[in-house]
């Protein structure tokens, strides 16, 4: 089992989430992640995540547009993202429920 502490800000998960609706190139991913997660991915972190995801077959590169190459999710990538988000959702629901119970008891 993976250590869950940093999962919600894991660069790989953020990149997969960014690519969930449409293919994007590096800069578009950075802007998108900053908007929906409030996290700035530096170029080293971003391309480290892209290389890992690409080597695991979770994303694939599309033909380059000028020097900017867009990436899209593969079927495996969609499945992996769905599984990760379902786990995160379970944790989130559990955490919120427990906070509610604790608040009611106070």
């Amino acid at each position, binding site marked *: 089992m993976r250590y869950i502490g940093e999962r919600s800000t894991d660069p790989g998960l953020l990149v997969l989430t960014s690519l969930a609706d449409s293919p994007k190139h590096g800069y578009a991913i950075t802007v998108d992640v900053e908007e929906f997660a409030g996290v700035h991915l*530096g*170029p080293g972190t971003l391309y480290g995540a892209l290389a890992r995801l690409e080597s695991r077959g979770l994303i694939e590169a599309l033909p380059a547009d000028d020097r900017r190459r867009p990436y899209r999710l593969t079927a495996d990538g969609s499945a992996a993202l769905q599984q990760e988000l379902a786990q995160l959702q379970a944790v989130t629901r559990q955490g919120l429920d427990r906070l509610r119970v604790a608040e009611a008891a106070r």
Partner: protein
Amino acid sequence: MTGSDKRLTPRLARLALRLYPLPYQRRYGEEMRALLEDSPPRARTFFDLLKGAARAHLRPAEAPAGLIAPAERVRASTSAVLLCWVFFAAAGFGYYKTTEDLPFSAAGHAHPLLRDAHLAVQALALIASATVVLGALPLIVAALARARREPGLRRTVALPFLPVFVFGALTAAVISIAHAQGPNGSGAGSAVAIAWWIAGLACGTTCVLACRAALFATPVAPARLRGALVAGTILTVAMLAIAAATAVYAVALSVDASHLAAETNGPYQLLSVTASLVVMAVVMVGAGVLAAAATMRGWRVESEVA
């Protein structure tokens, strides 16, 4: 941020890109350069790239495959070991400056473990330095011979010598400043020492990157490349052994000569001697591990070709 910072940071960021393994540079370099143009790099971008480059070297399984020829991969591995040596040597110089004074020699005479660890560091440093020279010499000779025949290659082959001359001139200037100041250092002296150390790292890094460019531009016989890889392996083993001996020295010093270990040390007297030695040992281990990763990658390529 000043105007000069704005100009400097993108240049530094592009320099940091060259620290990535070659397959990464070929596969993602152009995209990363485009990203750096789209999104103005901040100061922390440089450190993010350094971290990414280190990670890329440490996890070769994630590297894009099939983008470079085996001989290029051996060249890249050899250059990476040399770059690790630059950072290792910077930490090693810190060790030398920390332990050069008389009280440390006296402590060494009184405590055998201290003396032996210190001697081991010195002997291994000599072996490592000789290995760098012997490993690089055949490649330098080949590059110079080629440059004599091909004028187009001269600039590339001459470039690695430039940072060496710059650093030599800087060192001469620092020595004359130190002599003018006398034995009692000041805050300005500490600032000069830090600036000199950073300049040394910058010159060393530039020199290795220029060497790498020259090595990629020069056809070299496989036997010479294998010789460089053997030298890189010896250098890596020596680096790891020096790091271990430095750690032993730091522990022995704090046990056997705690008064010396607790003294303040370095520019601005910021750290204790023990803390300085621990920092140096950590940098040495880091450089040694990165060198080991590069060396193993080089031998893997060699065995694949064989």
